């Protein structure tokens, strides 16, 4: 066989008023220059014919060219016929189709969008109600038959969300204490009221920032982990396997996690309080030359049990909200890798949102109650 000199892709265009005939030949390769067909803007053909003569070689560049021709014909409304299409390019690829109507099949698409969204909201609310109901029933059963509860899972989760979270919660609370002390020190020193740094940091940390920072870190660490783990179990049909064995996923997966979080959150908040106060104390000592013992006595004087109690009570509620959001998002996850990722993201967003809203509600309620 004789090697031929490489011929480039060729395109010859014959235009009459009726027909535009494009003859394609030579050797079509992606790396080479591809011929272009650009009909005059005012051209009006009855139809367009593409004739593909036997080609030496061809690849994706021919497909791209034919696609360009097809799109042009679609735009200008010319029927297109292709002759001699190489085997390997499905004919459907070069058929001119009318542009698809961009609707969802209803007369007023926006109205039906609203309707569908409303109905989805209804289904979501029903799911939330059912989930909360199942959790309540589960807690009832836990109280009636504590021996039947999966304590081993619960202890494992307590270790995961409690003990293993101590370093990061400690660091963040300590830094929050430092920041609050710095901010207040700059202001209070102007009035010679240095000692009130202790009051400000103590109250701020114990009533608000300690429980809040603990909740935010736990939402990011543990809420996301719950959603990802349960979502992955769902994708893997493990939840189905529980259900067909007559075991309730809520009792089995949700309750141990929920209880673990609610038991650990107050302890974490207490720990966050301590580290926050310590941060304030060190700043006051270093920056304002306030002796630690003075700072400590001032802090003890300003705090009473209701400050501590409200903070801890809030943290129990925060723990419940984070656990519920994480587990619910996990159970709702799509059965795919992307679905699990979305569930984890959504769990963190939902739980932080719930925690902040709950905190605002508590602020108002505690103010009314005078706590």
């Amino acid at each position, binding site marked *: 066989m004789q090697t031929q000199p490489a011929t480039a892709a060729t395109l010859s265009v014959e235009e009459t008023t009726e027909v535009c005939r494009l003859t394609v030949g030579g050797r079509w390769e992606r790396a080479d220059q591809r011929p272009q067909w650009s009909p005059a803007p005012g051209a009006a053909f009855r139809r367009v014919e593409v004739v593909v003569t036997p080609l030496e070689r061809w690849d994706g560049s021919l497909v791209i060219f034919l696609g360009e021709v097809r799109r042009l014909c679609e735009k200008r409304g010319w029927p297109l016929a292709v002759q001699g299409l190489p085997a390997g390019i499905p004919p459907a690829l070069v058929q001119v189709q009318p542009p698809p109507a961009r609707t969802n099949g209803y007369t007023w698409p926006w109205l039906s969008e609203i309707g569908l969204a409303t109905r989805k909201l209804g289904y979501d609310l029903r799911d939330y109600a059912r989930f909360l109901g199942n959790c309540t029933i589960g807690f009832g059963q836990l109280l009636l038959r504590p021996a039947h509860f999966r304590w081993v899972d619960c202890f494992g989760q307590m270790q995961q969300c409690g003990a293993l979270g101590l370093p990061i919660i400690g660091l963040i609370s300590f830094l929050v204490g430092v920041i609050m002390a710095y901010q207040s020190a700059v202001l209070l020193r102007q009035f010679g009221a240095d000692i009130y740094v202790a009051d400000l940091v103590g109250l701020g940390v114990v009533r608000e920032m300690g429980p809040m920072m603990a909740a935010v870190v736990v939402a990011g660490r543990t809420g996301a982990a719950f959603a990802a783990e349960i979502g992955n179990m769902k994708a893997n*049909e493990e939840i189905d*396997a529980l*259900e067909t064995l*007559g*075991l309730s996923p809520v009792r089995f997966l949700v309750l141990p996690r929920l209880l673990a979080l609610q038991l650990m959150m107050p302890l974490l908040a207490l720990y966050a309080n301590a580290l926050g106060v310590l941060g304030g104390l060190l700043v006051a000592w270093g920056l304002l030359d306030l002796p630690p013992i003075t700072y400590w006595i001032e802090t003890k004087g300003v705090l009473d049990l209701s400050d501590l109690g409200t903070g801890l009570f809030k943290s129990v509620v925060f723990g419940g909200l984070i656990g519920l959001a994480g587990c619910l998002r996990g159970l709702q996850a799509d059965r795919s890798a992307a679905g699990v990722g979305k569930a984890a993201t959504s769990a963190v967003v939902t739980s932080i949102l719930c925690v902040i809203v709950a905190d605002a509600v508590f602020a108002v309620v505690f103010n009314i109650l005078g706590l």
Partner: protein
Amino acid sequence: MDTNAAAPAIDVQGLECRQGERTILHDVTFSVAKGELFFVIGGSGCGKSTLLKHLIGLLPVAAGRIAYFGRDFTTAGPAARREMQKSFGVSYQYGALWSSMTLAENVALPLQEHTTLTADERREIVRWKLAQVGLSGSEDQYPSEVSGGMRKRAAIARALALDPQIIFFDEPAAGLDPITSRSLDRLILEIRDNLHTTMVIVSHELPSILGIADRAILLHRDVQGILAEGAPRQLLAESTDPRVHEFLAPEDVTAAPRSP
């Protein structure tokens, strides 16, 4: 749970299966005798797995009736349903073993939850069930540490844990090589012969279908329901429907006419 000795193990009448808004199957009627090795076969997307999920109660039934041993499953209350579910074993497509537990713990969990056996008694049963599927010695391994075939076997052991009267298999051969898949078929036959368990197997593996099935229903997209019912070899020999042959006849791919 043997309320009616004469009733078939599974009796499905006029079942309609929906997934969300879409009707996948309608008017599905069949029954499975006790101890039968029954296959649900068909191409991808014909609704085999959806039918299975309806049978085991994971999806709500839109219309029709499912009865096990003469007891109605569709209208049973939640407690009765859970009770009936305990008499099924289900082996899922990818095993669905609980990944945070060892193989032994996986098999032990149904026993722990539904029986009054002591820990020592449970351990004996678990050893026996795992030995039955050829997994002695792998008790303390986690699902992620064993091969796909072993995971399938462990899932069967878990499905056997409560000595069920019916076992459902979702694509037992999915993702397995032909040798492992054949050994799994042999295992299924053995269990049926030894324990007289009724088996319902969702599959599209021709060798298994032609090899071990007593009877099968062939689902098809076009009819949204059962296209043919009978012993697979008999169907292959006697059916005149080209769609049945298309599915069951082992065809040479290179000899097939090229689609335009």
